[in-house]
């Protein structure tokens, strides 16, 4: 029997998702044995034209990582959708928008001005910014268009499954690939990990007092966190209660609170809003002014509540720009 054809593509991402494939270590041999790649820019020299030449639905599955922020990424995502039976949004950026999605607190113009002009290390007296088409003496040069708004993969194309994480952990990657190869997949649209929040498996949940009540909000960088105790019980913001489990608590084990890369649980659309609602609720003081003071002490709220999920939230970008 012919091996199933597979694509592994990157959009607005950091390369960590590619690294997560390498992290499969010797297991990667099993994958390579079982499938045949048709696109894998980081590792193999296929061209877009190779994919274009394939008949529709020829690819058994395409794993796409990264958020969508350029016309090229959108084009490739649409192409792969056409050529694939299954699309898996691979990693937090494709799933929720991820770190690149934080760009939605600004727009293209502001980003260009910062990146190409205003940073102290940049000298750009003529104010030249990237153009989609540039005429040069050697001919016409083109660049993809950068969009104003970063999107998740499923805001661009129809997605069948989500493999969460920044980056997805190897065991979950291997489990999902095997499930796909064996055709043992859950309902379309599923996130291929636990349906419950991280607290369920977190060792520190056992040390949590029954009643969570905080009187101040601390930043992890300002305290030495007890490696045994629940972060929230200490007043340190941890998104574990609002984030799907299945990651193996990698951050928690390194004494860092959860930042939510696995995204919200099944019924929640806007994980930031959900978590802030929970966090606000455990502020336990009996004075309105004090309540306000504690609530307002949250620093960098977007970076905290929406570190990975701003493009997938209800209000997913800065308004009025």
């Amino acid at each position, binding site marked *: 029997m012919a091996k199933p054809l597979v694509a592994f593509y990157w959009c607005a991402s950091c390369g960590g998702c590619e690294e997560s494939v390498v992290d499969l270590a010797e297991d990667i041999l099993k994958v390579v044995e079982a499938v045949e790649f048709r696109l894998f820019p980081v590792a193999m020299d296929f061209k877009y034209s190779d994919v274009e030449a394939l008949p529709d639905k020829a690819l058994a599955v395409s794993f796409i990582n990264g958020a969508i922020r350029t016309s090229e990424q959108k084009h490739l995502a649409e192409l792969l959708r056409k050529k694939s039976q299954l699309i898996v949004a691979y990693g937090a950026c494709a799933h929720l928008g991820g770190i690149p999605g934080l760009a939605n*607190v600004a727009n293209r113009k502001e980003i260009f001005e910062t990146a190409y002009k205003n940073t102290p290390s940049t000298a750009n007296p003529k104010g030249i910014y990237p153009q989609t088409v540039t005429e040069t003496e050697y001919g016409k040069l083109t660049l993809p268009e950068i969009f104003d708004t970063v999107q998740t993969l499923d805001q661009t194309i129809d997605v069948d499954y989500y493999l969460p994480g920044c980056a997805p952990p190897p065991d979950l990657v291997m489990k999902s690939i095997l499930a796909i190869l064996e055709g043992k997949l859950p309902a379309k649209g599923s996130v291929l990990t636990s*349906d*419950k*929040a*991280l*607290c*369920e498996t977190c060792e520190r*949940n056992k040390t*949590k*007092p*029954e*009643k*969570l*009540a905080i009187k101040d909000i601390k930043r992890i960088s300002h305290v030495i966190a007890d490696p045994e105790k629940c972060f*929230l019980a200490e007043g340190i913001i941890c998104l*574990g*209660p*609002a984030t799907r*489990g299945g990651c193996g608590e990698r951050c928690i084990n390194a004494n860092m609170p959860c930042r939510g890369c696995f995204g*919200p*649980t*099944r*019924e*929640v*659309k*806007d*994980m*930031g*809003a*959900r*978590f*802030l*609602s*929970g*966090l*606000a*609720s*455990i*502020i*336990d*003081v*009996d004075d*309105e002014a004090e*309540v*306000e003071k504690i*609530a*307002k002490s*949250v620093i960098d*709220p*977007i970076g905290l*509540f*929406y570190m990975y999920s701003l493009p997938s*939230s*209800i*209000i997913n*970008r*800065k*308004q*009025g*720009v």
Partner: protein
Amino acid sequence: MRLFICDCRGSMKLPKIDLGTDVKIEYHSNLCTDRPQIAPDEKVVIAGCSPNLLEGIFPDVNAEFVNILEHVSLIGHPPEKAAQLISAAVAKMNVTIPVEAKVFDIKEKSVLVIGGGVAGIEVATQLSRCGVQVTLVEKSPFLGGTVAKLDRLYPEGTPHSHTLMPLVNGLYSQKNAVQLCNTEVTSVTGRVGNYRIGLKTKPRGVQECINCGKCVDVCPVEVSDDGKTRKAIYYIPTFPDKYAIDFETCTKCGECVKVCPGKIVLDEKTKETEVGAGAVVVATGLHWYDVSKVEEYGYGRLEGVMKTLEFERAVASGALHPKKVAIVYCAGSRDSKHLPYCSKICCLLGLKEAKLVTDRFPDTEVYVIAMDMRSYGTFEYLYNTLRSKGVSFIKGKPSEISRRNGKLTVRTEDLYTNELLEIEVDNVVLSCGFTADTETFGKLKIKIDTDFPVLFENAGLGTAELPRGIFTAGAATFPSGVAETLIDARKASFSVLNLLQQDKIEKRLPQARVDEDQCSICRMCIGTCPYGAISIADDKIKVNEELCMGCGICSVTCPSYASQLETWNEKGLSKQIRSLAQKGDILALLCKWSAYNATERAAYDRLTYPKNVKIIRVPCSGAVDPSHIMLALTKEVKGVLIGGCYPHACHYARGNFRARAREQILRLNLDLLGMDTSKIRLEWIGKDEGRKFTEIVREMSK
């Protein structure tokens, strides 16, 4: 789905409504008297007058009520608005989780009363007189509680025997009551109507007794008992009518056995039994604050510094004859480091002790040092009597009590004269406050967040009734004098009878439901419940059906939406908002206890406001989901108003503060996202503040 629309006897102009074939519309003119047949499992939408009324007319129906009278017709808004409100209600009802009635069988018709003081005795007597089987347990060897230890009651110093003896005798003649002294509750299982209670009865040591007192003569162990000295074997003339051994101090020397062989037994075993009860009455009385914690007053460190009860017993027994006494009020009360509240009766206890000592020793100088004198009601006469008797009242709070040159010295300010005083006295009497009996409430799995179960009073349940078929009587409810205790005991007895004469009780309040497949046991919800209804059992989050009052605060707290409130589940509300909110609208999410009623007050007072104000009734401002506010903003509404109760007046304790915290953090987020956050307002609006409501929405519409 059936939709009932009532035009209130033809007073309303109704809109044309077409909601497709799935919604069958029935028009009425008089829903309040011509009630249609609606099956218990049917979901319906009823449009008409206020839900406050409709809820009473349809108490057992799963309905979404639409207020087209007060929110449309009465304020002159066009019928089209009614159509929008109705269709949003239908959209909500399609996905609403209906209320499931919770039925509790009242199987056991007997009652357990914990505490054999005047409150417990009175409850046991009243109930057994009405034919109820009562088990009264008292942890000490004798009935009578604190009152049995007193010389006199306040206000005027009547001997306690005027009250206590008739009470004890009244109980003694009851056939339906069993009194178990030396007995404590060890465990409580079951729920309202069917409790199983484990009891532990410690040995009394004395089996038969003719009250000759020879045992006391030979007992070598002297024990200090609240200001009085007694032996390890002793007697209090209440009930039962025989001596008892205090095994905590008894050395088992055997001298008493020698004078009373066969009748006194030193090696009796503790007995464990179990009883059933349909209801439990907590009548555990006063619990003194540990006033030694007020270190500067030296209780337990300085000889001569006493508590009111000790002073009373010492003076009455003749063991103490002070020439100069200072009575210090609020020792550890109304103090953020100790008891932040006022225990209500200590001012009067202090006055009583002042009167006791001046009655007995008219020459004794008495100083009463009080920040404030709270001699409420007719207790003012007692205060006046003592003033006329020459007792010195000083306004202040002593900073220190010390022993100098063999004399106790009270250092205090006097705010009447603006002087610093140092008063030398023989004795200092600390009038300290009282705490809740957390131990007993803990056994009954009732969490007392604040200081006394007054929280439940806030929830409209009355002081006599804690949920779960557990009632309080007397000082267990809140410190009270004997008269108030007896009144409270009778109220509790009535509540118990009321419960027991039913074969089952049905509760149809919306309740939080937790989906185990979604819940990660993160525990965020537990502490937010004002009623302690949420706990972990068998590694699952459980919502106690008896305790949940349906505020929805926990559901909006849940980071996974695993907890959902019946009637007000997330999906339903989001459908309703999606359907209702239109560009340029003011969406008002209003607490059903306060702000929502203000909108009706506005209608009755003929106050008008713009027709684009769309009102949704929610159980509490603390049940408003920030995602719903964001959802409304994406619909380009002009404003979102959340209305709740004023601080410290929230029906669900601190729901409004949770709303405030959520609103503040949401604002931080939305500011960064360039939203105009002045569109969001969280306002406290009292139930009669129709004018305030209309002013706010008018301002928001500008």
